[in-house]
């Protein structure tokens, strides 16, 4: 008898389940029980999880065009920007083309690039532009003869755009679009606002949710536009050193220059599964200065604790920061 196919089947089921969302308490108990039964179960699970994760990388290798399909474009390429309408387009396409549907949906949706927690990923796009993705970023890239469109689903990207006046380069986050011809800029969609910082050249930022003059803004080098969807665009000047500092993540580093601890912790947590919590409200507002390795949660906690006269203690996957007892 061979128990292993069953183990792999179970492992696959758990790996997929764990990748989707947090487990309910009853599920967690079932998983723990299964893992405790036999040490091979843990091995099978981590193997399945690694394989499942690796598929993202392999899938991202897929080119936009595939020789397998030659379906006509049923929908005008411009009519499908929101996620919902993309989904609807996909459904229509799947219905039309049967088995080839998935391919079609995939092509309509463009090439998907994903970076994991703590990962900084650089990709060169087919037009020669490059995209550096900060932690937990997802971008969908769709190029054709007349368009270069990138949908930033979440996260943060630094775009170095190759010049091509015939095909404007547009980055979209929901109803906010950033249009560039040849320039360097970053787009961040982490909090409610969308931040656009320009390092080189000029971009145009548009907020589709807001009508009138406030909805279109030119942003030049050393400027940042902060867009709160539907509420207009705010323009700020950014010192060059400040802009560079904000892009330290490209080298796996995070730089802080007086940001409140609570902001710094939020940023470092974004890069790691291991999370820091501030147990003492009084600490939250203290300023943090320094250059830190983005992946080194413990090192960050230690350094900050020392600098602020606080102490850090580890509790499983959580690091607590609290004021030192006198």
């Amino acid at each position, binding site marked *: *008898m*061979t*128990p*292993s196919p069953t*183990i*792999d*089947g179970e*492992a*696959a*089921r758990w*790996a*997929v*389940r764990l990748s*989707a969302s947090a487990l309910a308490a009853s599920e967690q108990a079932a998983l723990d029980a299964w893992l405790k039964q036999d*040490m*091979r*179960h*843990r*091995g*099978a699970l*981590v*193997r*399945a*999880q*690694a*394989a*499942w*994760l*690796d*598929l*993202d*990388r*392999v*899938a991202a*290798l*897929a080119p936009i065009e595939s020789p397998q399909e030659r379906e006509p474009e049923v929908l005008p390429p411009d009519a499908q920007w929101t996620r919902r309408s993309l*989904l609807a387009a*996909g*459904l229509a396409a*799947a219905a039309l083309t049967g*088995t080839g*549907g*998935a*391919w079609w*949906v*995939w092509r309509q*949706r463009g090439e*998907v690039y*994903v970076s*994991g*927690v*703590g*990962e900084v990923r650089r990709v060169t796009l087919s037009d020669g532009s490059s995209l550096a993705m900060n932690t937990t970023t*997802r971008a*969908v890239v769709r190029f054709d003869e007349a368009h270069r469109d990138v949908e930033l*689903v979440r996260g943060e990207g630094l775009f170095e755009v190759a010049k091509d006046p015939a095909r404007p380069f547009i980055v979209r986050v929901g109803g906010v679009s950033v249009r560039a011809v040849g320039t360097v800029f970053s787009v961040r969609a982490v909090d409610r606002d969308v931040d656009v910082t320009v390092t080189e050249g000029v971009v145009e930022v548009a907020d589709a949710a807001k009508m009138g003059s406030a909805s279109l803004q030119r942003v030049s080098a050393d400027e940042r536009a902060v867009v709160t969807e539907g509420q207009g665009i705010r323009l700020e000047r950014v010192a060059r050193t400040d802009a560079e500092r904000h892009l330290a993540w490209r080298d796996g580093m995070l730089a802080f220059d007086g940001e409140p601890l609570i902001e710094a912790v939020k940023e470092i947590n974004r890069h*790691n*599964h*291991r999370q820091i919590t501030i147990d003492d409200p009084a600490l939250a507002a203290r300023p943090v200065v320094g250059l830190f390795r983005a*992946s080194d949660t413990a090192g960050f906690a230690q350094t900050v604790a020392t600098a602020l006269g606080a102490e850090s203690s580890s509790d499983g996957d959580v690091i607590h920061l609290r004021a030192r007892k006198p």
Partner: protein
Amino acid sequence: MDDHARHRWLASRILPHEGEVRGWLRRHVHSLTSADVDDLVQEAYARLWLADFASIVNGRSYFYATVRNLLLEHARRARIVPMERLGEIEALRIPSEEPGPERQVTARQELERLEGIIDALPEQCRRAFRLQKFSGLSQREISQAMNISEKTVEKHLAGALRRVLEALTRESDSVRNDLMVLGHDAKSND
């Protein structure tokens, strides 16, 4: 420790060598059944999961060494191989790395291999898989797109992953077939 980083390490440094390690096991330890090989590989992953991976320079050698240690432990307990084979196992050498052209799998080939696996999936399963991995849809979005429950989506995705896992073991099939006849049933199921 950071689980995600561990999974990534396993994916990039260990998984690519699994087929090779299985082939090596089957070639050199003739008494192993394919179920024994599965068991050993699973146990090896369980150990690798606990390893201090940041300090491991060469994942491939470490994988081989882990499997070899497990073999020795099993041999001492006479679970898988008869005692007289102990020396034989101890003498087993980890093959040196040969980055020959056949070993350098290109991105293109990897993708083609994945396409091959996906094409063999039942249709619903294939669609769900493509929507997740190629189109980046969440399980909920897939359930809406395909008009099936999220539970069913999960089942399809797990089915697809199981095929991918099977493919990982099949890397050197011809070798396995040659050696199957030599295996005897020393399998223990506890």
